[in-house]
């Protein structure tokens, strides 16, 4: 018995030394790439926040925390923070609820009709900038589809000419684009719940609303909360749809944070200010995400 085990053991040891080399050779290129191109830019971004750096003129001296103070004193920064928070807190819950409900209905639907899944997933793969751009033709008051339909109902909403209208239009497109994300995740969880669970529950009730609320929802909540977290992280970075739809206008009224920061950095080439703004926002988002993370974890522990 003892001798029988020896020979595979020895072979395994030889293999291990062989794979030890492979293990590091395999991981090295990716590791080097990541270290070179993520840590370095992040550190220089922090460095830029302490200097006066405008492209063309180069670094014209260290200014301490001046950039941060400048950002904290700027009304545009606080305004963008404000409307981004509103945007996120409307869009994300909507997407979560709609995505889960749609997934529940697709779960009910017989498998022969699962063409609903690819249709309902499709928006997730569309280019946000293009959707925002198409949105101009959907929301513009002259000939826009939404404007026509709402106008027919007697509602004349100034989609493109006011802050409320512009933000609402961007949110509608955002919900269109991102609900599939929650949908896809929810569907994966709901179909992974074993049939026996549903069968057992069906013996107790034939009410599908109860089935969803007391079986499907609690069982998918752990994963759904991950979806919520990821969606939250992404929503704070919203950029493409509002940029293409309104360009931040009229004025700066729909300038979500990413758009403001983008203009500061690229249009005005004010790297010091732009980086300070980014770092402050990063702190803000991290706190918000950490808060939600802790709340959610308490929710299902």
């Amino acid at each position, binding site marked *: 018995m003892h001798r029988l085990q020896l020979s595979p053991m020895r072979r395994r040891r030889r293999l291990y030394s062989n794979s030890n080399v492979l293990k590091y050779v395999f991981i090295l290129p*990716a590791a080097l790439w990541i270290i070179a191109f993520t840590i370095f830019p992040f550190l220089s971004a922090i460095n830029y926040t302490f200097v006066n750096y405008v492209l063309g003129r180069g670094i014209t001296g260290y200014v301490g925390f001046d950039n941060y103070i400048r950002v904290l004193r700027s009304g545009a920064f606080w305004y963008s923070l404000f409307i981004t928070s509103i945007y996120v807190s409307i869009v994300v819950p909507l997407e979560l609820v709609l995505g889960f409900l749609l997934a529940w209905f697709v779960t009910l639907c017989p498998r022969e009709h699962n063409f609903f899944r690819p249709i309902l997933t499709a928006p997730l793969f569309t280019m946000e900038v293009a959707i925002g751009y198409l949105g101009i033709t959907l929301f513009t008051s002259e000939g826009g589809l939404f404007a026509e339909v709402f106008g027919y109902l007697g509602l004349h909403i100034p989609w493109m000419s006011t802050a409320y209208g512009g933000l609402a239009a961007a949110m509608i497109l955002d919900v269109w684009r991102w609900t599939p994300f929650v949908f896809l995740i929810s569907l994966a969880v*709901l179909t992974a719940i074993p049939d026996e669970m549903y069968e057992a529950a069906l013996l107790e009730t034939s009410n599908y609303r109860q089935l969803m609320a007391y079986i499907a929802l609690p069982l998918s909540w752990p994963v759904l909360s991950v979806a919520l977290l990821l969606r939250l992280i992404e929503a704070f970075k919203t950029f493409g749809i509002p940029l293409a739809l309104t360009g931040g206008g009229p004025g700066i009224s729909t300038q979500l944070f990413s758009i403001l920061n*983008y203009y500061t950095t690229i249009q005005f080439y004010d790297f010091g200010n732009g980086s300070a703004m980014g770092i402050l926002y990063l702190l803000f988002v991290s706190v918000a995400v950490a808060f939600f993370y802790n709340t959610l974890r308490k929710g299902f522990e």
Partner: protein
Amino acid sequence: MKRVLWLAASWRVRAMTYIVLIIASIWVLIPFVWAMQNSIKSLTDTFNPSAIIPFVNYQPTLTSWIKVLGDEGSIHALLSSIIVSSGTTALVLLLGTPAAYSLARFNFPIGSKELNFWFFSQRVMPPVVVLAPFFILLVQLKLVDTWIGLILIYTTFNLTFGIVIMRDVFRDISRDIIDAAKVDGANAWQIFWLIGIPLSLDGLIVTGIIVFSFCWNEALFAAALAPQHAATLATFILASRGTQGVNFSIAAVNTLIAIMPPVLMSLFVHRYLARGLTFGAVRA
């Protein structure tokens, strides 16, 4: 998708299911149909709300398609998008596959927990934060406004993502198969190349498609770092927004060209999709 639930459902639940799903599908299809409609309308017809059914209400025309596809700018942008997205996908798979395999199969002093944390913290960071450093980096490397510059940046952003997903794909390979291969005398490389890769091929393809669509759809770095010569479709669209934003028909054609490739690709890969998009958090 769950026969148990369907069989036990009352006719009201069944009717409700179809009503909700059909309404949702219509809602999803509206922008696609709207874009297709407008792309074959003449400029005057785009402002005519009663022009709904082609040939009946209005005479469809391919003028806009011909105009856009004959335009050097849009064709060049399409080419840029294809080159940058496939270049990045290839590079991410090339660098990421071995790394992911290594992380899935062997023990490291840095555990998967740390990797996940690193990954999530990277996602929380708004990409605008590192825009300035990347701009300077590209200036120094003389890669501003080049395909290579964009590929370099996109690879950076997608590499960790790709590794995290592919690591989970490789973890699914059963230990028994690997042990059997070892008993047959396969070395570490052979196990990777002849067992690992073929068994996880569909997972790797999905990863590739997701990375491809991320790059294809990315606008921030594209517009900032490759504004002209290497302009991708996203940049092209942002630029034409200023100049021809009101021409419904041209806007529709541009939109369709920009959104269709990733959408069509996504239709073929439903397995693993949920998992890929949640970075491995969901197993389906």
